[in-house]
């Protein structure tokens, strides 16, 4: 793939002169820039700032998502009205909340964290609601005849039974949060991966832009595959969901 990239670069920039060198990055310069970003610790500082935000934002969204999800499940009359609203809100790209956030919190950390949290809260709430709703009622009946009631039913049956749905929701929430983080940082941050990307743009440094994009993709993919993918696979194997 890198060879093709290099070939396209050679062809497009050197031979045919279709693009100017500052419009199309060469693999070599991207690697160099990446090494430079690592060496002068720009990347590390940005990573730490971004990681802090996403961890806080994601945790907040898990908590509010759980609260919203459980509330909807608990009060049936909320369900019809609120579910539709939440589904609607979820289609709104979370960066659209940024003006809101800035008005509320000002141009600071809280605003970005708010945008991240909003991005994934609804996905998580919906997953919790549908996960719990789709629990096989036979499981609950069986547990009740074995003496479980109230909280014990929730803890021992409903939560584990809705786990496959829940993990899918958490995973989806994560990807929304990740996108919201980047968008938020590009628009308003003074630190972080998204901001480094914007600096690249401001300096017209196409190599830096590309290098940061690669880092973003790699990080997103590895969290998705290594953390959520593993858990999902583990659950699916236990349940026997992968047998087709």
């Amino acid at each position: 793939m890198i060879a093709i990239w290099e070939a396209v670069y050679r062809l497009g920039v050197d031979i045919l002169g279709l693009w100017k060198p500052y419009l199309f990055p060469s693999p070599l310069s991207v690697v160099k820039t990446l090494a430079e970003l690592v060496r002068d610790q720009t990347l590390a500082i940005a990573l730490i700032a971004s990681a802090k935000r996403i961890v806080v934002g994601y945790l907040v969204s898990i908590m509010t998502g759980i609260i919203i999800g459980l509330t909807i499940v608990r009060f049936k009359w909320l369900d019809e009205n609120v579910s539709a609203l939440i589904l609607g809100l979820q289609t709104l790209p979370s960066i659209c909340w940024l003006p809101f956030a800035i008005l509320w919190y000002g141009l600071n950390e809280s605003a970005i964290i708010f945008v991240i949290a909003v991005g994934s809260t609804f996905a998580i709430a919906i997953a919790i609601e549908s996960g719990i709703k789709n629990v096989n009622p036979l499981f609950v009946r069986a547990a009740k005849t074995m003496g479980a009631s109230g909280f014990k039913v929730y803890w021992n049956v409903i939560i584990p039974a809705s786990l496959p749905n829940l993990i899918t929701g958490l995973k989806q929430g994560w990807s929304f949060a990740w996108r919201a983080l980047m968008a938020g940082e590009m628009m308003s941050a003074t630190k972080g991966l998204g901001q480094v990307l914007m600096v690249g743009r401001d300096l017209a440094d196409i190599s830096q832009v590309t290098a940061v994009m690669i880092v973003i993709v790699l990080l997103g993919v590895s969290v998705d595959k290594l953390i959520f993918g593993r858990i999902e696979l583990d659950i699916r194997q236990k349940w026997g969901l992968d047998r087709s």
Partner: protein
Amino acid sequence: MSLIVENVSKSFATKRQQIHTLDNVSAEFKQGEFVCILGPSGCGKSTLLNIIAGLEAPSGGRVVLNGKEVKGAGPDRVVMFQEAALFPWLKVIDNVEFGMKIAGIPPAERREKALKYLKMVHLTRFQDAYIHELSGGMRQRVALARALTLDSEVLLMDEPFAALDSQTKSILQLELQHIWWETKKTIIFVTHNVEEAVLLADRVVVMSANPGRIKKEFPIQLARPRQPENVDLTYLVAGIMKELKEEVEKVAKAEFDNNWRLQKNIILPSIDSDLGSGL
């Protein structure tokens, strides 16, 4: 142990209509008795069992266990369903331990007991398997072991072997007879199958449909262990079958009548081309 069903009625209100499922059903179950309930589909057998289990409340009458009225489900009346209702997120052994875990029995003790009952159903080899790795028959065995661990005096079984092939079914019927003999539990067993009922039961209760009532009771005083080929058994089966057939026919006829009325009310555009299209 004494279990009494007193004038239990049940009706369901659905959006379209009011269904009167059970009408004044009374029955008494003695300590250690094995009772089979037979009846046409839809006569309310499962409903009756669920009411005894406390999973559903009766519209009228009550169920009294050991002098106390039944309010809600509880581990003194364990239910075994047609589907095994095992938890796919737990290993076999943890499934068997589930009820004891809820009851707060310490881990070592419940492991020991779970193994004892898994042994009784011949599944110790599969204790660490997950549910999807088991066959249908094995799942019902696990469900049986799980039900037995709670030492409930009453075991309620709703067509537990209905979905199994006939070989597996007869093996499990045999095992259930042994287990019942060893544990001396009171078992109320719902089934469609007359042979199964006569093979297992001390008493067979035949229900009638629309509304569900107890129609007739047959004591089965055959020596155990029983074999399905036994002549006396076949004779009893024939007698009960006759009783049941009447009921099944009644239900079929009622359904046929409904259809027929329905058809008469449909305005058919062309009489010959659409005959029977509404079936």
